[in-house]
């Protein structure tokens, strides 16, 4: 049909600021020569500015006319007075043009219509990720729900996806990505993980068995203010975007703000530094909201916080050299997880406690969660080891997510099989 072509042409014209507000498209099917003639008369009236989408061809063949708003009354009266019946094909041409334009922009920007057309091989904006979450929930309402656990300093919602096949307050696994906003491969991997959980469940493989007895919570953009800042102002931004009195500098390191060795060696008290711990523990809403969630849930058994880069799997502590009581078990689980990860693409990971493997760091996430009794507390540092660092090429997103997922499964399965 000619309609889409003409609409497209109109859109092209429309983008040159011409408007079709109030224009209608009328259809006449002439049943007699008189009727045909009446319509042809209209063609001669140039001042009406009629646009014949389907010109008069013969009896019984439709004539489509786009009539500008100003001429509508006249044309309709003319047809009615002549006893020529017509129907209104398009009530408001502009509305249709607008819709088409949106659709065109959408497809040119590849805004996905569902999570199967979503591009997992690319980095996305905050809005795109939030949109992805909504689509995932809409597509799988019996498995996935979206929780708002708080709001960021700049009042952005802090969303957590809950994957559950039922039960009440089942033992759960927590995974967060993007707590440090410049570590883009982590948020991107989080998106992939979300889809993977759904796929496994649909195909009854992988984590489907874990979901039979446990819930999974996934916070993909744990630091949305920072993330937005990396997209608009400074790609290397790490911290939150809070302003605390007494300093012109912005932001607190959300991985130094937890109540575990808070303020001790391994964090900075200078607000202008990247490891500034903040004025007090849990000063950051991004951190406080997770603390509140974990405490009120009360049944989280494994907590995994994901960073990049360095290719490491770490367990507590970072704030003290005292080994955790479960050191041996965590070390063994790490060995297994790292082996699983490497099996896919040969990516080499090192593992151990934070303080022995990298450096002393106080007020860190998994030190707090471990002290809360969440034995299986781990942190990942994903690809790479410094060649691209934070600027990991997008084509490495999926391989990174895939291999990391194998390690996560080891941890999740171990938690499930060693319930405490």
């Amino acid at each position, binding site marked *: 049909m000619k309609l889409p072509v003409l609409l497209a042409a109109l859109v092209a014209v429309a983008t040159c600021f011409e408007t079709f507000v109030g224009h209608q498209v009328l259809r006449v099917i002439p049943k007699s020569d008189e009727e045909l003639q009446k319509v042809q008369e209209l063609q001669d009236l140039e001042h009406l500015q009629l646009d014949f989408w389907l010109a008069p061809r013969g009896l019984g063949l439709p004539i489509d006319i786009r009539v500008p708003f100003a001429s509508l009354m006249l044309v309709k009266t003319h047809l009615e007075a002549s006893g020529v019946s017509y129907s209104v094909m398009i009530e408001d041409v502009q509305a249709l043009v607008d819709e088409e334009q949106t659709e065109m922009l959408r497809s040119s920007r590849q805004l996905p219509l569902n999570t199967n057309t979503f591009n997992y091989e690319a980095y996305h904006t905050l809005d795109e990720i939030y949109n992805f979450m909504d689509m995932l929930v809409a597509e799988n309402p019996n498995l996935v729900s979206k929780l708002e656990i708080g709001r960021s300093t700049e009042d952005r919602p802090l969303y957590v996806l809950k994957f559950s096949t039922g039960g009440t307050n089942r033992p759960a696994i927590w995974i967060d990505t993007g707590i440090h906003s410049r570590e883009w491969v982590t948020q991107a991997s989080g998106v992939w993980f979300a889809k993977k959980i759904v796929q496994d469940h649909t195909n009854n493989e992988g984590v489907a068995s874990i979901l039979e007895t446990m819930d999974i919570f996934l916070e993909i953009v744990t630091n949305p203010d920072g993330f937005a800042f990396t997209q608009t102002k400074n790609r290397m931004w*790490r911290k939150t975007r809070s302003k605390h009195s007494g300093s012109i500098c912005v932001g607190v390191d959300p991985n130094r703000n937890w109540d575990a060795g808070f303020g001790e060696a391994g964090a900075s008290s200078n607000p202008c*530094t990247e490891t500034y711990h903040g004025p007090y523990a849990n000063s950051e809403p991004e951190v406080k909201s997770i603390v509140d969630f974990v405490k009120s849930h009360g049944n989280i058994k494994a907590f995994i916080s994901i960073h990049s*880069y360095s290719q490491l799997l770490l367990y507590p502590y970072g704030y003290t050299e005292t080994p955790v009581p479960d050191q041996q078990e965590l070390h063994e689980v790490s060995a297994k997880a790292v082996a699983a990860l490497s099996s896919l693409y040969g990516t080499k990971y090192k593992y151990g406690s934070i303080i022995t493997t990298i450096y002393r*760091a106080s007020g860190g996430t998994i030190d707090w969660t471990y002290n809360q009794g969440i034995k299986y507390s781990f942190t990942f540092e994903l690809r790479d080891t410094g060649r691209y660092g*934070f600027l990991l*090429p997008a084509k490495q997103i999926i391989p990174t997510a895939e291999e990391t997922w194998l390690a996560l499964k080891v941890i999740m399965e171990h938690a499930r099989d060693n319930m405490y």
Partner: protein
Amino acid sequence: IPESGHKYYLQFSTEDYRTGEDAGSCLATVLYPKKKSPPVVSIKCSRTKDKKEIQEEDNRLYQRIRHQTKPITGNDIPDSYGNIEPALEPVWALAVAGSSSIMWEKSTETLGYFLAQVKAVKQWMRKDDFIEFDYTVLLHEIPTQEIISCHMRLTWLPGHPLKVKHFCASESPGMDGGSGAESGSAAGASAEKGANF
């Protein structure tokens, strides 16, 4: 070593930055004296490539750059998404080499660096055969996690050592004000392992 300082014995392998190919292995000792002074380094490396191969690759790199008709300029290499324009790869390669000398000078027993990004590069055309570039590079400092902005002036001709002049200012998140180095980082931070914890 009591009264003297800390001595480290290192054995490590190297790889080609571009291709990831094995490039040889090294044995080194690094002595950090008790009083703050540059470390004493002794190092011995074995190469996988012979001198001739290296010379040829250097010449190829050099020619690629010399063949440009206009002065090369660039920004954000790699870009936010990790992409490096093929035309700018040689310039990035030189930045990697040049900034390694900055990192060599700046590193201490407790502070290490990675090249995070080439923020800007501008070529200075010279009348002689040397090629010259002005860079702004961002170094990622461990364990402070700071991003340090350095200005680097690099000059090179194959067969000659890279000449690098640099000046680094720390880029504090507020953009103003000095960055405190009072991060309270512990001694014993491994110089090899960067992390973004």
